[in-house]
């Protein structure tokens, strides 16, 4: 697959970093090249956090990109910061629970998903990141929902957090189902 880069951005605590790791793991389990790069530093203690996950069938050069293929914006500052950088014909998944629909660009596929409400239905606010990834998976041709579920399961297993696999799978499925 062509180099596919995704920026995931949100408040500290929204699971941005973990979502990126799961994307990278998803690519790796598919036998593809991957990189994952966090923004690190003081923001990890509650400010805005973001990370970039790249998946490619070729060796990846830069782990940072000028223009990502996709953006997952979990809060308003994230959209402000990254919206204009997304590639033409790229994808933006917007957390419509907190972020107004972007109006700045028309050559972009925008998917509005009320992440917080869906997570509330599931009964676990921590899974909003997986709702977002589920929506992302619907519009990325080369990666299926099953791939992401596997990446999530393997990541949580390695972390010793198997007990959360069920709620996270539900979140991925709901995100996928809701996206249009």
């Amino acid at each position, binding site marked *: 697959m062509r180099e596919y880069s995704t920026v995931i951005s949100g408040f500290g605590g929204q699971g941005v970093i973990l979502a990126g790791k799961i994307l990278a793991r998803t690519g790796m389990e598919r036998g593809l090249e991957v990189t994952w*790069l966090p923004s690190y530093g003081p923001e990890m203690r509650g400010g805005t956090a973001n990370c970039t996950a790249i998946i490619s069938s070729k060796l990846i050069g830069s782990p940072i990109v000028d223009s990502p293929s996709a953006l997952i914006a979990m809060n308003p500052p994230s959209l402000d910061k990254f919206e204009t950088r997304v590639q033409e014909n790229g994808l933006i998944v917007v957390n419509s629970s907190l972020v107004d629909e972007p109006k700045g660009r028309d050559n972009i596929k925008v998917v509005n998903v009320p992440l917080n409400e869906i997570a509330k239905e599931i009964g676990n606010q921590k899974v909003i990141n997986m709702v977002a990834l589920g929506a992302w998976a619907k519009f990325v041709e080369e990666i299926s929902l099953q791939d992401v579920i596997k990446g999530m399961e393997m990541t949580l297993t390695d972390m010793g957090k198997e007990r959360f696999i069920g709620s996270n799978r539900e979140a991925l499925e709901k995100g996928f189902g809701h996206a249009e």
Partner: protein
Amino acid sequence: MVDKQLMRGNEAIAESAIRAGCRNYFAYPITPQAELLQWMAVHMPEAEGGTFLQAESEIGAINMVYGAASAGERTMTSSSSPGVSLKQEGISYLAGADLPAVVVNIMRGGPGLGNIQPAQGDYFQATKGGGHGDYRIITLAPSTVPEASRLTYDAFDLADAYRTPVMILADGMIGQMMEPVELPERKPPEEIPPKPWATTGAKGREGNVIKSFALGGENLKAMNVARFERYEKIEEKEVRYEEVNTDNPDIILAAFGTVARIVKSTIRLAEEEGLEIGLFRPVTVWPFPAARLNELSAEVDTVLTVEMNAGQMVEDVKLAVRPETETPFYGEVGGVVPTPGNILEEVKKYV
């Protein structure tokens, strides 16, 4: 599929050190290398005979390394730029006492407190002898997480072979990012060379002395001359570099570490525009691969050096290339990382 693990650079360096037979690790917390220390805290005690000790200071850590190296054990410390400055006294003593040890520098923006973003401002410090006195240390600059793993594993062998400190010179990006890594096998203890010079208790032999000290000019001169003879062997045998697309390019870019991998993306961007960029990447930044760069410089008019500093490796590039070669420089400072697009714009000024 080979057994790969998705790891941060910091974690891969730590685990590879353990697999290389490092059993004594001493360090002090600093961003962006903290995951290295944290990995060691968990996994070093699991290794047989493994010592993890969080030192009271950077100075304490490097001197604990000095002690463990004196005792003939494979040993390592790690830090980031300000902390490595503090270790320089100890690195000078390690070099002066001919002790093998591995020091990891996950560079960040400087000078002073600077910031915690990736930077390459410690190139001079690493490659020109960062402490007092005449010495060099082998300096390995990885540009990917798998390479950071391999170079760390090799660093212990190089340190033992030449009785010298070896530095892994990476930056916050390599330390923080994750890539799939195929970790090396654990080195069997019998493959680690014996160290008859070590201070392990003078049983059945005369006392060994580890010192960087010699009164009288002639004595100290002899120690220095012997060391520089070893450096000549290192320069002869241990030079490493990578070349990409250097067969008849329009321009050659010289870059190390993180910047070099970004240049690889620039090469692809440029190809779409019909522009051929070659990359020359020193893996050993000391010894610097000057001879090969000199040969390559005959192929092009311009060697553009790109770094995350205000121009450090470019001085080695200028010394290496032919007199007629143009040697412009593009650098980002203060923890700013150039993007592939930034670099391509710069290239277009020269071709």
